C-alpha cells in the first residue's frame, strides 16, 4: 500500500517553502527584517500605521534581497557540481588511457 504523501507548508496556498531551495531562508530573514524595521521605526516615531507600512516594505525588500543572493550562490553551486560530475565521469572512463585528464594535467605541469 503506497504511503500517503506528507503535505508541505505552502504560504498563501502556493509557495512551497519546504521544497523550494532558498525559500525558507529568504522568508525567515525577511520576517526578521520586517520585525526589526517595523519595530525600530515605531521606537523612533511612535506611529503605528506607518511602522506597519515600513514593516511590510522591509519584509518585501529583505526577502527579495536574500532570495537573489541565495539563488545566485545556488546557481554557482550547481555549476560547480556539474563540472565535478563531468570530471569524475571523464576520470572513470579514461583512467589509464592517453585521454586521462590527470595524465594530461601532470604532463603539462612537468613541461
Amino acid at each position, binding site marked *: 500500500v503506497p504511503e500517503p504523501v506528507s503535505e508541505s507548508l505552502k504560504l498563501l496556498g502556493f*509557495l512551497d517553502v519546504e521544497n523550494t531551495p532558498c525559500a525558507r531562508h529568504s522568508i525567515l530573514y525577511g520576517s526578521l527584517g520586517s520585525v526589526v524595521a517595523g519595530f525600530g521605526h515605531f521606537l523612533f516615531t511612535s506611529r503605528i500605521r506607518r511602522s506597519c507600512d515600513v514593516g511590510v516594505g522591509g519584509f*518585501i525588500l529583505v526577502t527579495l534581497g536574500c532570495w537573489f543572493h541565495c539563488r545566485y550562490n545556488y546557481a554557482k553551486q550547481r555549476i560547480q557540481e556539474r563540472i565535478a560530475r563531468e570530471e569524475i565521469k571523464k576520470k572513470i572512463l579514461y583512467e589509464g588511457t592517453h585521454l586521462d585528464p590527470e595524465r594530461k594535467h601532470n604532463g603539462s605541469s612537468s613541461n
Partner: protein
Amino acid sequence: MAHAAQVGLQDATSPIMEELIIFHDHALMIIFLICFLVLYALFLTLTTKLTNTNISDAQEMETIWTILPAIILVLIALPSLRILYMTDEINDPSFTIKSIGHQWYWTYEYTDYGGLIFNSYMLPPLFLEPGDLRLLDVDNRVVLPVEAPVRMMITSQDVLHSWAVPTLGLKTDAIPGRLNQTTFTATRPGVYYGQCSEICGANHSFMPIVLELIPLKIFEMGPVFAL
C-alpha cells in the same frame, strides 16, 4: 508520474525541465511578494478611517508604481527568454522518432535503423494487471535511450492532439498536415507518463503516452537494432 492531488511540477528528467523548475520557483517568489503587498493594501483599504476620496497629486507614488512593475517584468522576462532560446539550441540528435496522433491512440515510427512501427493504446481497465496504472499504462511503450539527444517529429492523422510528457518538460501540438519537432535528452532511466493535451474527441483523456528510458547499452541490444 504525478501522485494523487499533486499541484506542483513533477521532478525533472531533462536539463530543460530542471531550468524550467528553477525559473518557476523564481517567478513564484515574485508572485508571492506581489500577492502579499496586494493583500496588505486590501487590508488597509478595509480598515482605514480616512473618508476624503478627493485625493490627487501623488506624483512620487505614481512614478514608483509605474517603474517598479517594469523592473519586475524585466526580472521575469530575462530568465524566461534564456530558457526559450535554450530549448531551440542545436544539439545534433542521435535518434529520431515520429509520433502520429490518431483518435484515440498514438503511432510511433522508429525509422532510423529499420522500419519499426507500432501503435500505443491505453490499457482498458479490464486488462490491467496488479501494479498497472489506470488511465496511464499502455500496451506498447516508447523505448528510448538515456543520455542521448532524441528528436521527436510529431504530427496527426486526423484532428489536433498534443504530445506531452511533463517530467521532460515537453508539450508539442500534433497538427494534421504539419510536422512539429521537439528534442530532449533524458538524464535518468525510468518509466515516464504523459497524456494527450489537446481536446480531440470523446476519448481525449484515454490516449496516454508512456516513455521507457533505458541505458544506451541495453537499448542497442534491443529489437530496433536487430532489424
